[in-house]
């Protein structure tokens, strides 16, 4: 047996043992959690299968032919292009994720120093790491390609040949992006420091996602039918014979309808994937070892930063509030420096811009000329949604962001409640700041009474405070401090409980605030309505209720979070 094959066997066995241990040598609670996640995952797979099935069934329905033609949709062309379009999306997504995956696997694994100094060929380490990356890609394929394509085949009554060729196409698909990703990773790391490269890639990934979404929303016509027709034409255009995704798509479509040219496309696709994988790994492997040595020997780029403001000029609050302020100041400094944190804000900010544009310009959804109550409700709703999206990540990852440096807070003479308050204060900031901006625009563009605008802003800020406190507290109660990848900062329990209780509180308090504001809003609904004692009574009950639930939201979860934090051992 060649040394490379032998080393690959040893490494694969070790990886298998680690995977098994991760599943079996954990507490019962984590095992139960894993089973629940697995069940959710299976539901997700079933969902994507049905989605593929019903979309295809809908698009191929004879009854829809005339209707689709009226909206400018070429029904047969769209049906033919669907697999190609899906494969293009998968290939792009897989290539982008494989660059990040390759950087992590080939340059940041904890075992690299040990492996690269062991008497085994570097090639075997490289291939073993690539195989590890491939596992993730196949899982991605299973959810996003295999199940929808099975649904597609079932909806069009394709025969056995389709379902035999599909696994071959799926097996070949991740080979190209994985090899390409590894090659690009090695190239990128020759010019950009590794940590920065990982951060930049994260931002690029988010921007690409945004590009896809808003591109399809903005570049096509403004009316629903026009937009649908434009999108369909765009999807149909993705089936170009010179693109690899089209080879896969045409292969599947061909064997599905009994056109044996499909087999030729399948062969071309599989051979091309194999050649690209072989050639790519061969070239990259040559560059890898020297690249790794360069990375291992270098730290973060040395970059002079502006000195912190002289300490004596800053006003420091006294007592625990001063400590909470210290934590907020530290987080405000750190957040913009870490691009991985900025990624969290790209989507909500883009949504904010997009909704603003829609509110201003769109005749269907714009607020101009609407009745004041609709304007108020839309403004408050959009402002709260955007602020809560910005705030949720900050709140739920509040403690987890400290990561392994959390020991600094643990050994400091600071009460756990001050830590939770500090984190909650930071996460709450989007509500008063972005909320003020959004409500001001609602007042200006929608012609809303400024007093109502102010009340709307207050409601956003108050409900936001309660919601943020709940989410921060549950993030503190169940933190993840040993994360390697930022997307794994929120634990399952923190995410579930924080979101569930946070949104439950938001709906209840919003309803109570709506009741409390009846004396102001009722005349808008019906100018003839008098403010009877019953209205004032209902408003009073609503106000008291809102104060009570918000008071509870601001205190009780903090107590739970702080108590759990104090019990944390490290």
């Amino acid at each position, binding site marked *: 047996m060649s040394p490379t094959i032998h080393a690959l066997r040893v490494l694969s066995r070790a990886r298998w043992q680690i995977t098994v241990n991760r599943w079996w040598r954990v507490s019962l609670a984590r095992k139960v959690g894993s089973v629940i996640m697995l069940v959710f995952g299976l539901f997700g797979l079933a969902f994507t299968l049905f989605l593929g099935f019903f979309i295809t069934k809908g698009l191929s329905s004879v009854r829809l032919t005339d209707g689709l033609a009226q909206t400018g949709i070429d029904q047969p062309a769209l049906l033919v292009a669907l697999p190609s379009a899906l494969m293009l999306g998968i290939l792009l997504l897989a290539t982008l994720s494989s660059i990040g995956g390759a950087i992590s696997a080939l340059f940041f694994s904890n075992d690299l120093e040990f492996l690269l100094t062991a008497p085994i060929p570097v090639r075997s380490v490289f291939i073993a790491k690539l195989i590890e990356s491939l596992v993730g890609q196949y899982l991605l394929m299973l959810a996003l390609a295999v199940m929808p394509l099975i649904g597609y085949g079932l909806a069009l009554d394709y025969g056995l040949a389709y379902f035999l060729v599909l696994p071959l196409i799926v097996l070949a698909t991740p080979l190209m992006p994985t090899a390409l990703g590894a090659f690009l990773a090695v190239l990128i790391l020759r010019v950009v420091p590794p*940590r920065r490269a990982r951060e930049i890639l994260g931002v690029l990934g988010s921007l690409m996602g945004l590009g896809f979404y808003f591109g399809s929303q903005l570049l096509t016509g403004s009316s629903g039918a026009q937009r649908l027709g434009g999108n369909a034409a765009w999807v149909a255009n993705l089936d170009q014979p010179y693109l690899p995704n089209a080879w896969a798509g045409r292969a599947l479509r061909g064997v599905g309808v009994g056109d044996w040219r499909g087999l030729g496309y399948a062969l071309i696709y599989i051979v091309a994937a194999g050649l690209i994988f072989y050639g790519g790994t061969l070239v990259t492997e040559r560059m890898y070892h020297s690249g790794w040595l360069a990375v291992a020997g270098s*730290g*973060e*780029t*040395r*970059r*002079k*930063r*502006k*000195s*912190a403001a*002289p*300490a*004596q000029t*800053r006003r*420091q609050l006294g*007592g625990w509030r*001063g*400590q909470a*302020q*210290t*934590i907020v*100041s*530290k987080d405000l*400094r*750190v957040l913009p*420096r*870490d691009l991985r944190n900025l990624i969290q804000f790209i989507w909500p900010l883009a949504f904010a811009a997009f909704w603003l544009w829609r509110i201003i310009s769109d005749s269907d959804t714009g607020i101009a000329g609407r009745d004041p109550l609709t304007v108020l409700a839309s403004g408050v709703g959009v402002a709260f949604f955007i602020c809560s999206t910005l705030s949720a990540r900050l709140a739920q990852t509040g403690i987890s962001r*400290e*990561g*392994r*440096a959390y*020991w*600094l*807070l*643990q*050994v*400091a*003479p*600071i*009460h756990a409640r001050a830590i939770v308050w500090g984190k909650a204060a930071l996460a709450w900031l989007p509500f008063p700041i972005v909320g003020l901006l959004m409500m001001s625009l609602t007042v200006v563009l929608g012609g809303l009474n400024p007093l109502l605008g102010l009340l709307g802003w207050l409601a956003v800020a108050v409900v936001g405070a309660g919601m943020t406190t709940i989410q921060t507290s549950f993030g503190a109660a169940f933190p993840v401090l040993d994360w390697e990848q930022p997307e794994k900062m929120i634990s399952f329990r923190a995410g579930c409980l924080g979101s569930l209780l946070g949104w439950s509180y938001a709906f209840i308090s919003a309803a109570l605030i709506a009741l409390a504001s009846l004396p102001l809003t009722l005349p808008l609904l019906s100018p003839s309505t008098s403010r009877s004692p019953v209205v004032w009574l209902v408003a009073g009950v609503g106000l008291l209720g809102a104060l009570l639930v918000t008071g509870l939201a601001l205190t009780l979860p903090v107590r739970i979070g702080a108590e759990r934090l*104090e*019990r944390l*051992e*490290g």
Partner: protein
Amino acid sequence: MSSYDQPLIHAHELTKVYGQHVAADRVTFAVRPGEIFGFLGPNGAGKTTTIKMLIGLLRPTSGAALIGGYDIAREPLKAKALIGYVPDQPQLPDKLTAREFLQFVAGLYRLDPAQAQRRGEELLELFSLADRGDDLVGGFSHGMRQKIALSGALIHDPKAFFLDEPTVGLDPRSARLIKDILRQAASQGTAIMLTTHILEIAERMCDRVGIINGGKLIAVGTVDELRHGSDGSLEDIFLALTGGTEYQQQLELSEERA
């Protein structure tokens, strides 16, 4: 060494049990003001567990950890205000500069900002890091992180100072500097507890040493007291107490077999 008053660090029957494994078993000792106490033991003996219980990072299964007379479980804030701690692998916020990090620590300990800034600059000068003070900590080597962690631990002039393997990864000059700083801190009345595998450091620096093995404190005293009148080195005492001499026999046996 200054006068020995009430102990600043007091471990009273500290016990930590993980499932069936007893990591620390009724560990009892005291460190007085001005004393440097070395805590020795083989790997996995319970050194770090004991330190972590004393500083409040781990809750003891039973027993008490008192810092300056305050039980860290009952009055954690008062006890922690007296503590300085440097772990063996200091994990620090990567995206703060060295100066910002010290400012952050000063805020946590409620120090006067202006005074903290002066003290921070002194410490950066002392550790030859003043010209790197505006660089991100994430770009620092292990030794530089160790120095920054030390600066953070010293900025509030702790009364009870805990160091876990303080000289690991440091160049000889920095290691010497740390020894000098520890001596100076001790002379000002700080109680110092350090773990180390370098027995020469323990022998030269520590007023007393404690040896832990299998979670049990098996010997406490000055090096002379542990010698019991013999002329063996601390290494000989350590190996005799922790069973290290049997390795030599095993090694000889395996050589014979080979």
